[in-house]
């Protein structure tokens, strides 16, 4: 149970790192490209 909880937090953390750590410029370019 302890290990499962730890792994769940780890996976949430992986997503947070990749969202918060994403380069804002890359995100902006991506959004601009998605516009019609």
């Amino acid at each position, binding site marked *: 149970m*302890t290990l499962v909880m730890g792994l769940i937090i*780890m996976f949430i953390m992986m997503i*947070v790192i990749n969202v918060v750590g994403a380069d804002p410029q890359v995100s902006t370019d991506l959004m601009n490209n998605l516009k019609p």
Partner: protein
Amino acid sequence: MDADFYPFIIRWLHVLNGVMWIGLLWYFNFVQIPNMSKIPDEQKPAIGKVIAPEALFWLRWAALGTLVFGLWLATLNGYIVEVLTLGLGTHLKGHVSLGIGMWFGIIMAFNVWFIIWPNQKKALGLVECDPDDKPKAARTAMLFSRTNTMLSIPMFYGMVSAQSLYHLS
């Protein structure tokens, strides 16, 4: 001497203290606590009076050592503010991951010194307390120790991924 050598020695001391700390934490959670019920009552004092206090001594000083050398290392590497603010200004994945790992480590060290240790002192009979408080204190210490075990998994992920996945040295 090579300029990299000084931060390297601090990192080495950080890892050395960290292995001592988490090694003992995992000893408690994976070996001692789950097996206490299998030990006959007359033999329990060998664990409670001898092994556990000694293991807790090394655990809590190693926890402090890990914290001190870790913060020192982040200062030497020039990213202490960036990581403690979780890379909010830099948007570098290495800062976010190391920051989360560091905050988990800080919370864990706080638990060791300010929650687990005061409660263990009561549970092990190292300080005077109401006998009725002992089981409650032992349970609180056990639950926070278990929480630390749980946090150690994402903590290590943050520490290690910052370096080898996101190339923050």
